[in-house]
């Protein structure tokens, strides 16, 4: 029996098709990451699995039953910050414990343990409005760590977190993974997906590739990725770099661009000269291992996340 099973799952809003016959099979105990850009349908898919939305057509089963009947086993963290900023961290968790039917004394005990688990015990009595983004997200994740929840669905949990908060957060997810809980994590950040046992790449409502992170990278045929940091980013620079990349694909990054080439040694000095010729001196050129974002870009020619 699969933890999550979907067959020809389709979701339409009027004429707009958000999910196109999605077939997803996630084993119990798997840590599955669904990665795709904004508007690719990943949040819609997660909310159907979490029993918040209904599919237009197709089948969904959670542990062999329809999502509505599996609610007791599902813990869902939506994309938005749903905790009440006016209440303290502890009060927020006591509220959820009460909703799940715990008595007051049981709730006090378990909430204490959960706060410790997510590293918020010392800040338990502070109002959530005084929490940082990372602390608030950890508190919200604590709402799905009550015992007996077997499937955890986290929608974009690391969005907006600074690198240190993201690392802490992912460490916590890693611990959950080790406890053999089934986890479905939705993200548009490639680094988040590296921890997964399997990654599904979703684009325009379809899962376009699915495998473990290493196999996805191997299957993409990406061997040599050159990361180029440039002081300026514009169409001219991208066009120049495109001449050195396979099928002229150039991925824009925070600091510059990434290109995909077969011969790094031959291409590197040429890249430097070509950039110099247009008055754009590269500040750094290095060969890097391909990331899942590179794989997504190679498959779709789209960036999985917006570049700031």
């Amino acid at each position, binding site marked *: 029996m699969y933890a999550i099973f979907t067959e020809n799952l389709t979701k339409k809003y009027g004429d707009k098709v958000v999910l196109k016959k999605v077939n997803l099979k996630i084993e119990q105990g798997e840590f599955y990451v669904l990665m795709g850009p904004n508007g690719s349908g990943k949040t819609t898919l997660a909310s159907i699995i979490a029993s*918040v939305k209904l599919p237009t057509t197709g089948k969904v089963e959670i542990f062999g039953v329809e999502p509505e009947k599996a609610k007791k086993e*599902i813990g*869902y963290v*939506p994309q*938005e910050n749903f905790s*009440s900023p006016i209440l303290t961290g502890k009060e927020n968790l*006591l*509220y959820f414990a*009460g909703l*799940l039917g715990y008595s007051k004394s049981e709730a006090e005990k378990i909430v204490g343990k959960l706060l410790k688990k997510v590293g918020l015990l010392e800040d338990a009595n502070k109002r959530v409005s005084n929490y940082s983004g990372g602390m608030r997200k950890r508190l919200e994740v604590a709402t799905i760590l009550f015992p007996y929840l077997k499937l955890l669905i986290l929608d974009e949990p690391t969005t907006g977190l600074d690198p240190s908060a993201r690392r802490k957060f992912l460490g916590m997810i890693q611990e959950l993974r080790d406890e053999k809980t089934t986890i479905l994590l939705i993200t548009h950040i490639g680094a988040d997906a590296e921890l997964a046992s399997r990654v599904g790449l979703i684009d325009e409502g379809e899962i376009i590739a699915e495998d473990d992170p290493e196999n996805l990278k191997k299957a993409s045929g990406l061997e040599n990725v050159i990361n180029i940091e440039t002081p300026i980013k514009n169409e001219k620079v991208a066009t120049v770099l495109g001449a050195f990349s396979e099928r002229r694909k150039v991925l824009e990054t925070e600091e510059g661009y990434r290109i995909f080439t077969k011969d790094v040694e031959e291409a590197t000095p040429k890249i430097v000269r070509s950039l110099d010729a247009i008055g754009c001196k590269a500040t750094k050129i290095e060969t890097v291992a391909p990331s899942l974002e590179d794989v997504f870009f190679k498959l779709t020619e789209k960036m999985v996340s917006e570049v700031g």
Partner: protein
Amino acid sequence: MGQIIVTWSKTIKEFLRQRTVLFWTIGWPILWVLIGSFSFTGDAPAEIVSHTRGAIAISMMVFALMTAGMANLPGNIAQDRERGLLTKLMSMPISPWRDFCGRILALLVFSSLSAVSVVAVGYVCGARFFFTMNQFGYALGFILLIFIASAGIGMLIGTFIKHVHGAIMTGVGLTVVSAAISGVMTPYAYLPLVLQHFAKIYPISSANSMITYLLVGKDYAGYNPLSTSQITLTIIISLSVFAVGLITYSKFCWRKE
């Protein structure tokens, strides 16, 4: 802990910890009790002054109940929806009806607190009420009708207006305008004929007149609102508004798309 109790506890804390909610529901009506008590009745005979202050205190108590139901409740619902709490709750094995009961119970406690505060300040300012225990019992019943009608309107606003500020502003606007044109904030006798008809149909102003009639005297109500037909009409409309609000809230706020 039951779902109703934890929802009640969360909602009442949210009401009591927001300064803007406290100000508009308790502070603002109290301010008007103070202004009304000392500005508009200065030179009148003592008996009339205490009665007028009593009528003002009742009007402002009704205004507080209206604000709580028609602005705070929809604000609370819209806030929970906007920040994704309703989405989270929909994924949990819980009942929308119990969520509703918890919210209404919190609103009832908060409304009672605001009503008592406003009347107490009115009393300190010289408002006096004259009633038998029977009349007091009836007045409590009519206060409950105001609460029910306001909560019904509040649920409708909270269901259809998605954004927090939009929901609160709509509620405040509706409270102020409807109180002004229905005789809650303006003496019934000074209203034009068409608004006098409206004041009798609008359950909140009708109940306001009933309470004023019972606790202060018939001269301050402007008409006799305690006819069987008027009471029946007020009860029916209040319950209907509440039922429509409740059904709308349960059906649309918790609807799976």
